[in-house]
């Protein structure tokens, strides 16, 4: 399947906050209550549509344990987006956000879009971190924020897509060098160079490719 852009994401955050479940819910639309501990890094992918453009998301799900931190650090540089996840029922996962964010900022390109995610919103009765606290943290550090549930799928789709929208917006503002793959962005194989030349050329072009793929 052809695509206009390819974005690379990483998912980070303490172990047990639901990173792997979020990825599985997004790629396979299912929830696995008993889940293997992620060892190192796992890969998943899905196509999404933004403004009528097909965008391929390639997602690397990392292990949260301290012992894998140095491995995780190798993934920041080449990622265009990061989902930073905490668990709303465990305050310590929220408290560790600062350290995760420091790591991310230090090793990533400055344009990397970071989405803060408070996961397990289905467990309202066990909530330990207020929504407002998440919002405040995001505001303070310039992140996008959402609460999700990998279990009920609530906001999962939106979290991945809104991150993509933000990256797409930055591309159109010219903040990303789309020709440097080290930024975690790639132009699709069948996109002409004109597509990336300017925002003005985009809509018409995308509609063309859209109808092309519709026929096949």
């Amino acid at each position, binding site marked *: *399947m052809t695509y206009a852009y390819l974005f690379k994401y990483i998912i980070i955050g303490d172990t047990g906050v639901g990173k792997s479940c979020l990825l599985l819910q997004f790629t396979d639309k299912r929830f696995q209550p008993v889940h293997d501990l992620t060892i190192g*890094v796992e890969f*998943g992918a899905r196509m999404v549509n933004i403004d009528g453009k097909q965008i391929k998301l390639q997602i690397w799900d990392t292990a949260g344990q301290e012992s894998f931190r140095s*491995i995780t650090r190798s993934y920041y540089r*080449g990622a265009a987006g990061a989902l930073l996840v905490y668990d709303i029922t465990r305050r310590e996962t929220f408290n560790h956000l600062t350290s995760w964010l420091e790591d991310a900022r230090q090793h990533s390109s400055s344009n990397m879009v970071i989405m803060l995610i408070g996961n397990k919103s289905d467990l309202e009765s066990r909530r330990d971190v207020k929504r407002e606290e998440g919002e405040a943290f995001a505001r303070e550090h310039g992140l996008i924020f959402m609460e999700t549930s990998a279990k009920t799928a609530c906001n999962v789709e939106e979290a991945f897509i809104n991150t993509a929208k933000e990256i797409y917006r930055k591309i159109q503002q010219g903040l990303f060098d789309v020709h440097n*793959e080290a930024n975690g962005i790639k132009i699709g194989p069948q996109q002409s160079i004109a597509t990336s030349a300017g925002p003005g050329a985009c809509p018409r072009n995308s509609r063309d490719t859209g109808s092309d793929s519709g026929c096949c």
Partner: protein
Amino acid sequence: MNFLRGVMGGQSAGPQHTEAETIQKLCDRVASSTLLDDRRNAVRALKSLSKKYRLEVGIQAMEHLIHVLQTDRSDSEIIGYALDTLYNIISNDEEEELEENSTRQSEDLGSQFTEIFIKQQENVTLLLSLLEEFDFHVRWPSVKLLTSLLKQLGPQVQQIILVSPMGVSRLMDLLADSREVIRNDGVLLLQALTRSNGAIQKIVAFENAFERLLDIITEEGSSDGGIVVEDCLILLQNLLKNNNSNQNFFKEGSYIQRMKPWFEVGDENSGWSAQKVTNLHLMLQLVRVLVSPTNPPGATSSCQKAMFQCGLLQQLCTILMATGVPADILTETINTVSEVIRGCQVNQDYFASVNAPSNPPRPAIVVLLMSMVNERQPFVLRCAVLYCFQCFLYKNQKGQGEIVSTLLPSTIDATGSSVSAGQLLCGGLFSTDSLSNWCAAVALAHALQENATQKEQLLRVQLATSIGNPPVSLLQQCTNILAQGSKIQTRVGLLILLCTWLSNCPIAVTHFLHNTANVPFLTGQIAENLGEEEQLVQGLCALLLGISIYFNDNSLETYLKEKLKQLIEKRIGKENFIEKLGFISKHELYSRASQKPQPNFPSPEYMIFDHEFTKLVKELEGVITKAIYKSSEEDKKEEEVKKTLEQHDNIVTHYKNMIREQDLQLEELKHQVSTLKCQNEQLQTAVTQQASQIQQQKDQYNLLKVQRGKDSQPQGLPSDGAQVNGIQPEEMSRLREEIEELKSNQERLQSQLAEKDSLIENLTKSVPVPGESEAGAAAGVAEVEGRLSVLLQETRELQNEIKVLSAERTALKEQLDSSNSTIAILQNEKDKLELEITDSKKEQDDLLVLLADQDQKILSLKKKLKDLGHPIEEEDELESGDQDEEDDENEDGGKDQGLSI
């Protein structure tokens, strides 16, 4: 170090004393000279000695060389020499010219020096930073040295690189170097770096290695390219083999599509260089890595689909049918096609439709089978064809039907103009070549695998033997040949076919037993005391007899299950029978075959077991043993148990469904409880608010009362109080409504609970006592009961919660009632107060009138006095009287007193 000293000390006949001294002098110069030129010359001299006097230079100069790397970075030349020298010390690559016996020693040297070098992790980090240097004299030897370290002590060096920041990513940049030597050696470095380390493999893939490597392969001319292509392919294999995450990434990145052009080798025959053969071999292996039967099933099948969609499978089939392809490439292509189609219906269907470009065109399957039963073809090629045929039939009922149908009387081509798959298989089965016999038998067995229909169909096959004699069935012919005592390979093949055929097929068992020669033959074979080489055949005979018992539906009076068992008891002995049966899985070649589906034998003699057959043995060995030991009563019981088991299964399913429903209900109830709790909280806050309002009012009221008590005179309007009270009736009615709602909610909950209680009661009653029934069912029922009790527990908890809630509600209601009555009392008092106030007002009015009258009187009196000529200070008195009527109470006491008279 001890080892090194030992070696050095023992080598008295080694280097002349002068050489050691020279090296020492050079080291001193490197260490202490203040002139860069001097140090550089010394390092260069060390480099020139480092190959011949590797040990000495290594021991004496290593630390000085490392020091140079740290301190002389500004001079690329000296760094280059130092790196080269270290490389010579550590690497074993350049030692090939030396004599045999020294090779081992030099290998030890390399790893010893590596250990010393990496003991300080900073040395590796230093090397990584040197790699970023663009200067050719620094970068190239750095690449070579690091590669050497990785080759010596891979795991340790990998670990150091993994934890150093961006270590792996920096090495990836080598692939982008425009200088070919560095790029190519970069590929070799990455090969060593990624060997058996999943984490590094993933990072390298993340850094776009697939894209880069595929680009290099294309640039270099794909299979026509040189050794760089080979190196890139090996690296790709490192990244993908047994790494599911990377395989998924490779597939999702649409890189499978980019492999297709590799196989466009066509018929033009531009020659097959050794390099091209190697490249193509690796390319085929890379395809196999992605669709290996040992990968997770989902992963393999999605790659298989992608390979069909992008035309890669089609391209491979073209090579299959092309002429002039070297035999080993052809063999590997067949193996590759096998795994691309295995268990994937679309690909299998496509493969069935492929025709060889012969005249007339023949199906590829037929052409391949011709090679399988042809003695003149290479052994590996024949194995590959068998594998391909097996993969074509794996989980492919349609394909199995098509193959079997070519043997059936109605469909055999009467003209005989074209040979069919069935004919080739029969030909192979009864040829004089035992390899063909085995292959054909196993191939035919795969046409029957897990397919009851084809097992029955194959019973219809009749063979014409010699002219004049009546035709004989295929089954009969197999047993005939078996009885003739041919080669072991032939008999093993036939027994594999027969066991597969008869298992799970009572009709085939009946056909088999119908031939009265068969059972005596089998018992004879098993009972006899034969040599070791016959043990496997004995075991297979035992298995076949066991199958004839286990899958016997008792339709033949002479060979009822029971009678066969008695026969075993009498002729062979149960223990003996079981022991012979065990020969199969104890055979030395058995476990090898059970590991992988591919028939892969070092030479024809090893061609004994088939992978699918080992699965069948595993499945049947236990059940047959049990069946042999069981008495007939037990058999009957078992039948009954089977039936009851089925019933139990139904019951369990029924309960499971019920539990599922109840789970849902529970969930709903829980939800309701939480909403109720929430409402309760809201009510409570409302009550608290009201209580405080009441308190306020009370206070206000008290104040009023006090004021009234103090000054029993008309005063401020009481409207404020009335307003505060005004809120209450509304709020109260809302509260009442909410309480009503709560009440009805609770009632509903309670009735639901009651229903559930009775439901659960029924359930518990209706679950049969599992004691006497079969263990499996008992476990199922026990599970149900367990879950029921959990449910009960949860229900009880819910009930408790509701009790607490209703207690709270009652308390609330009481509170409300009492506040209501307080309000009523207050209202009363307020009314009274208002009355009193009205009275006071009236009084006040009267007083005012009185006052006015008196004023009037005073005025007229004053006038009279004036008229009478009496002087008065009139102004002041009159004005003050006019002004102050309302502000009175706020003015000072003196005036008040004056007015209140």
